[in-house]
């Protein structure tokens, strides 16, 4: 029996972008990290570009699929690292939804890639921290790490945002499907 799935242009778009995000995600997981839980999160560049070019739904699909498939490939599926990663992705996607709605409703206050990237990185870090605190390490000492972690989130959010901006500058206007 041959099974055929009807795929849309949108499906292919999501698949390609997710593949790109996964490649970055895995390349990055090979980098050593000075503090546990701190990594640049460059795959979020893809999420931000998706959000701006193709809208929130595509960005959400890419972010969640990236966490799912990335964890299967690295071998952390359903582990604490996966839970933290998923919580972070959900939180950043949620805050990006709010940011996008505000940007659409009030263009004066619209966020560019850098603003979006920073709020996403901070939401990501807050969600991870909250989950780590409630589920894995319910120790007040963990809060000593929060300022450092948030600083890293802001710095990496800024860097990702700048990268996203540069990529967006090179994408021709008429690419939208």
């Amino acid at each position: 029996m041959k099974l055929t799935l009807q795929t849309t242009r949108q499906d292919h778009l999501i698949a390609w972008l997710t593949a790109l995000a996964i490649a970055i995600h895995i390349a990055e997981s090979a980098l050593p990290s000075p503090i546990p839980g701190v990594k640049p999160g460059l795959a979020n560049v893809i999420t931000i570009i998706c959000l701006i070019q193709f809208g929130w739904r595509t960005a959400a699909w890419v972010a969640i699929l990236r966490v799912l498939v990335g964890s299967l490939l690295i071998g952390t599926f359903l582990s604490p690292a996966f839970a933290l990663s998923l919580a972070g992705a959900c939180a950043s996607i949620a805050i990006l939804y709010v940011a996008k709605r505000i940007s659409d409703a009030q263009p004066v206050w619209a966020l560019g890639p850098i603003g979006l990237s920073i709020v996403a990185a901070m939401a990501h870090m807050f969600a991870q921290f909250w989950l780590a605190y409630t589920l894995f390490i319910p120790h007040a000492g963990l809060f000593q790490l929060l300022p450092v972690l948030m600083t890293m989130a802001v710095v990496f959010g800024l860097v990702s945002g700048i990268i996203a901006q540069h990529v967006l500058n090179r994408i021709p206007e008429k690419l939208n499907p």
Partner: protein
Amino acid sequence: MNVQLSRGDMIVIAGALLLLPMLYLHYWGNASHGEQIVIRAAHQDAQYYSLYDDQQIHIAGPLGDSIIEIKDAQVRFIHSPCEGKQCIHTGWLNQDGQIAACLPNGVTVQVIGRDARFDAVNF
């Protein structure tokens, strides 16, 4: 490098730069001050004391009495029958999680916060 910042971006960056020092102040200031202490001695139940009741506590160990002092929301060993006096040299403790131990006499004192159920979950 041409990086365009919208007004929204500026607000986000300003907010983040405002938030970070507040976090440092709040969590690296005096925020995680302990609430009580727990003294554990060999072959005895753990004993809990408030960090806010100034007192001296005598704990009997295999070598003799260790004396622990609670004063001004801090705690320290002031006397120990051991040789190295590591416990005394540890000095004052007041932050949640800090610990001083006299291994020869089998006595430890640890500052704990309000909600210490377990240290960590490991996988």
